[in-house]
């Protein structure tokens, strides 16, 4: 019996070894987050199949991730402060630490050496060695006179081993230059104060030039031009989104869901059933496209010819597709109950859509709008493909 067992063990070990030896790239790999069960699936987009499930990753509601410079490893940021490093090729958890009580997202530095995590509790940013996950620096988000710590939102990387993030409670934007961090130096912080009330999320444009924070408590956004010294924040888009009679907002829009296409930004209106179009040079609104619900993600296909939009509860069963040149909605799809996220393949011929309450991910052909594949998944939320490493701010 034991002998049969040990033969079996050897057999499986060999089989696993053989799989690891099989040469393959990571360019068509990705991860689906299963938010309720604390697990992820590693998937491939060439044949649209699931390759592995990894469990025991903690609270993954609102989890996001970023990839290593060689696109071999994923760094997963859990809600419970967990930071997990996952090997996309051996399909194994390499290391997991719990670095805070409650966290919201993370970023990798431009050179791939540092991982930064933004925390709600204790409010601030912690920085780790991307190789070992050893702590490198902690930035408490202190504000005011009594040393209160602010929740952090909108953490992104910026060129020059910098991280930019926003203090929700303080209404500030901080730029942390981590050039010296790996040699034991402290991050050099530039603080921009009074950027506006309740900034709820932020993004950096793909060129790394502009950092934009959405303001919940005010009718507008805050913009920092990272190419201009000294750094300053300026108000743009007064009147952005909220309008005179804002509807209640049941889900915070994600600014990561903003996109630039054809010299314009397409972005979710806050509290209104519209996608706003803003001139990418002047930051003036040029149009508002009536949509099915309050947009959550407004995402351009990589060729920027189409923009795909999903919506907030209770209208979250639908996806609409905007044709960029005409600004018209050309397609409406009903993937099912609770569409949470969309991710394009690198050249955009496929889009993967997570449908939480139907426990599946649906893959569509973005040209014909036909379903290509359906993958079972447990309460899927975020979908993240490895091409993200190559993009500033993702």
């Amino acid at each position, binding site marked *: 019996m034991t002998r049969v067992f040990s033969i079996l063990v050897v057999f499986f070990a060999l089989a696993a070894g053989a799989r690891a030896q099989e040469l393959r790239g990571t360019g068509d790999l990705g991860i689906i987050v299963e*938010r309720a069960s604390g697990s992820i699936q590693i998937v491939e987009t060439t044949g649209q199949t699931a390759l592995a499930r990894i469990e025991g990753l903690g609270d993954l*509601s609102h989890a996001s991730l970023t990839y290593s410079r060689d696109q071999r490893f994923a760094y997963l940021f859990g809600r419970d402060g967990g930071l997990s490093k996952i090997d996309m090729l051996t399909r194994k958890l390499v290391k997991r630490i719990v670095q805070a009580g409650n966290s919201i997202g993370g970023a990798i530095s431009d050179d791939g050496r540092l991982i930064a995590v933004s925390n709600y509790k204790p409010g601030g940013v912690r920085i780790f060695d991307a190789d070992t996950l050893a702590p490198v620096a902690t930035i408490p988000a202190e504000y005011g006179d009594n040393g209160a710590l602010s*929740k952090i939102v909108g953490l992104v990387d910026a060129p020059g081993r910098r991280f930019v993030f926003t203090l929700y409670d303080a209404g500030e934007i901080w730029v942390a230059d981590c050039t010296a961090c790996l040699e034991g130096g402290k991050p050099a912080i530039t603080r921009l104060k009074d950027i506006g009330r309740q900034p709820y999320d932020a993004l950096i444009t793909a060129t790394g030039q502009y950092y934009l924070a959405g303001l919940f*408590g005010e009718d507008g956004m805050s913009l920092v031009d990272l190419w201009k010294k000294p750094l300053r924040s300026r108000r743009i888009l007064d009147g952005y989104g909220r309008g005179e009679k804002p509807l209640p907002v049941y889900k*915070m829009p994600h600014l990561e869901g903003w996109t630039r296409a054809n010299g314009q930004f397409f972005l979710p209106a806050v509290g209104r059933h519209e996608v706003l179009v803003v001139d990418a040079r002047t930051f003036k609104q040029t149009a508002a496209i009536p949509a099915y619900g309050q947009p959550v993600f407004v995402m351009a296909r990589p060729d920027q010819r189409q923009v795909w939009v999903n919506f907030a509860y209770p209208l979250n069963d639908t996806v609409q597709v905007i044709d960029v040149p005409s600004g018209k909605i050309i397609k409406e799809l009903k993937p099912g109950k609770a569409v949470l996220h969309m991710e394009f393949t690198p050249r955009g011929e496929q889009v993967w859509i997570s449908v939480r309450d139907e426990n599946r991910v649906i893959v569509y052909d973005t040209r014909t709008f036909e379903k290509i594949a359906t993958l079972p998944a447990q309460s899927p939320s975020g979908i993240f493909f490895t091409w993200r490493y190559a993009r500033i701010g993702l």
Partner: protein
Amino acid sequence: MRKLALLAAIVALPAAAQPLSDGRKAELDSLVRQDCGSCHGMTLKGGLGRPLLPGDLARYSTRDLTGIILDGIPGTPMPPWKALISRADAEWIARSLKKGLEK
């Protein structure tokens, strides 16, 4: 302002609520975890919105909580839910939050 909204909610509360069906309760349970959870964390340990665990809510009565859920907290991202759920629904949510959601 916030007190006033609460007061208004309390005054408007009807005497008794109809019992909810089990199906409705299951829907509301999922609403709380998924949709309240999008701001308060799926396990309600807090996100952009504060934690909603029994210890955190001990200082509110069920009526206060029902009012907050229906009317939201003006000036903050906490939205009013009255366009989507009934007072009986909100009261059930308030009671379940005070008790703690089942696992």
